[in-house]
């Protein structure tokens, strides 16, 4: 084990860290005092270049290995996930060019990169100590991103709420981790799992699991840990909210799945209706059911589109949890497909909201009136993204949901006991169509009092179109991503036959 090896495995992260130092340094030295537009352009291009560099590195130098027996895990699965995370950040950085809310340009892009670094480390570790530090890195950066529009009261409130709830959730997570460590004396997930089977089932283990789920439930905004989400999505600067909704979700779900299926693989339990057994599955089933109900029904009453997207994000956390509950390799793949495509979709939706907000000064439903005539491109992107969120075929969201349901039904085939959750999810999916169509009705049917065309930056247009194309592509040919994920999972964990 030497430093060179560590650096080699950490090459994408190192590239990102260097980019970050470059962005901060360039903005603080020779760009200080220049026009904000120029500083934004330079910072964004550096950020995108860094992300792309890391993606290319992963693509052309596929290196795999475990360091320190699992403190650092670099395998095909983490590499694919990292590439998607980097893509999401690059897209967010380009969408940030649409906004002009802060004079601290270098820091804003720098913090996006720092949050991404946190995501990458979250994905590539199977050690609770490292996981916690990585999670804190991502969380701290996101708190800062949420409160970045200092002059804006809503942003300050968003940042404070996110920070206070997040701090509490971190404390719970840390307490849960320390209990797990106390029970087993190990920090590596696989070793924890091995030790748990040998000790008799212990009430302390239940405490530990529920504390870990509280901490991670906060990150994925599952009910009842969702209270921060609507205010943060609404108050935070739009690119920050987009990153919280896309990259943070993907990394957190990946972490949750690993935590549950590797670390707590011997405390699964059962969420079937007539065969309830203690473990994390019934706990997650409860979180999923509540998230589906609360998210979808509260979204019906929203008039702010960002808030609507927040409640829809809560509902989507409920859907994605089905993949974790399935507790199978199929469930893992379905979960990753769902959360990845959800990231692209929600980024597209937030991009449209950012433009509309900048031009009309509001993200209310009325602000979207006449969008199809003011900017056909934006309206088209919004159409694709929202319908995909609602799960209309042939868009990515439909296949995401389909795979999730298939995975959970196959996993629960012997008893079909978990069927209640699937029925709930399908029923509420129909409800969700209503609120997405509300937005689309404004955009396509209603007329604005003054229909001036929107001016959209070419970079924004390009990103939004690419995102929408991704959503359509993965909808029409989901196998492109699914087969890749399946192969990666098989290569990553050949012994992992669920």
């Amino acid at each position, binding site marked *: *084990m030497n430093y060179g090896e*560590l650096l080699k495995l*950490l090459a994408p992260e190192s590239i990102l*860290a260097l980019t970050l130092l470059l962005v*901060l340094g360039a903005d603080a030295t020779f760009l200080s005092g220049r026009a904000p537009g120029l500083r934004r352009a330079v910072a964004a291009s550096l950020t995108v270049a860094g992300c792309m560099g890391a993606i290319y590195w992963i693509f052309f130098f596929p290196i795999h290995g475990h*360091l*320190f027996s699992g*403190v*650092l895990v670099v395998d095909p699965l983490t590499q694919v996930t990292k590439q998607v995370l980097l893509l999401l950040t690059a897209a967010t950085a380009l969408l940030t060019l649409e906004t002009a809310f802060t*004079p*601290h340009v270098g*820091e804003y892009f*720098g*913090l996006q990169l*720092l949050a991404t*670094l946190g995501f990458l*480390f979250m994905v590539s*570790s199977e*050690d609770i*100590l*490292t996981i916690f*530090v*990585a999670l*804190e*890195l991502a969380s*701290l*950066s996101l*708190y*800062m991103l949420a*409160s*970045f529009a*200092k002059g804006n009261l809503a942003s300050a409130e968003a940042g404070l709420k996110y920070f206070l709830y997040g701090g509490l959730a971190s404390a719970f997570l840390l307490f849960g981790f320390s209990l797990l460590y*106390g*029970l*087993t*004396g*190990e920090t590596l997930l696989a070793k924890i799992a091995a*030790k748990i089977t040998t*000790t*008799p089932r*212990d*009430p*302390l283990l*239940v*405490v530990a699991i*529920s504390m870990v789920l509280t901490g991670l439930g906060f990150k994925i905004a599952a009910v009842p840990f969702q209270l921060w989400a609507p205010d943060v999505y609404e108050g935070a600067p739009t690119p920050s909210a987009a990153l919280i909704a896309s990259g943070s979700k993907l990394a957190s779900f990946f972490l949750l799945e690993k935590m549950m299926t590797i670390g707590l693989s011997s405390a699964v339990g059962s969420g079937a209706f007539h065969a309830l057994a203690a473990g994390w599955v019934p706990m997650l089933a409860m979180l999923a059911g509540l998230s589906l109900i609360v998210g979808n029904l509260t979204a019906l009453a929203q008039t702010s589109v960002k808030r609507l997207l927040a409640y829809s994000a809560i509902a989507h956390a409920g859907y994605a949890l089905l993949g974790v509950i399935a507790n199978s390799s199929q469930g893992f793949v379905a979960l990753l497909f769902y959360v990845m495509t959800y990231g692209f979709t929600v980024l597209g939706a937030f991009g449209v909201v950012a433009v509309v907000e900048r031009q009309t000064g509001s993200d209310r439903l009325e602000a979207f009136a006449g969008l199809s005539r003011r900017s056909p491109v934006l309206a088209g992107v919004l159409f694709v993204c929202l319908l995909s969120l609602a799960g209309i075929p042939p868009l990515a969201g439909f296949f995401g949901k389909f795979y999730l349901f298939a995975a959970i039904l196959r996993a629960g085939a012997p008893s079909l006991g978990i069927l209640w959750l699937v029925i709930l999810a399908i029923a509420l999916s129909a409800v969700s169509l209503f609120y997405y169509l509300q937005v689309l009705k404004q955009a396509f049917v209603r007329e604005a009092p003054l229909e001036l065309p929107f001016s959209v930056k070419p970079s924004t247009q390009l990103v939004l179109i690419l995102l929408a194309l991704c959503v359509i592509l993965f909808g029409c040919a989901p196998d492109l991503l699914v087969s890749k994920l399946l192969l990666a999972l098989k290569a990553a964990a050949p012994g992992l036959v669920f």
Partner: protein
Amino acid sequence: MESLFFYLFAALAVVCGILMVANPFSRNPVTSAMFMVLTMISLAGVFVLLHAYFLAAVQILVYAGAVMVLFLFVIMLLNLKEEEKRKPGWVRMGFGLVSAGLFAALLLRSVAAARNAPLETAAATVDGGVKPLGLLLFTEYPLPFEIMSILLLVGMVGVVVLSKKELK
């Protein structure tokens, strides 16, 4: 002898912790902060008893020292005097009590279980002195150590951005 000190420090930590959040004699935030210092110091005592010597020293240096200075600065910055009395709503109170009660029940159950069959918790394999800790940190956990430096960088950037006066 050791267990005597354990009970002493543990009781001190619990009592000071309670006095920190619910002091019946004073609602002055500075008093709460001082009780927090006492809690931290008693925890440092517990760490010593657990052979975590370095952690105990750091606990006093960083938490009882630097972090508490920060707390006092915040109290002065906000010019807080008496904390206002709040009346919690019944619903909120009920929810809080129910969840706290459930949690307490679980903890009590695990304590009871531990009485009957002492937990097979793995005893710490290394001593908590500086040297074993350093070896562990730099041979097995260099990655979290590196991430810490980035975490501290986030802190620096955040402090400067959020609390520096805007230049006109």
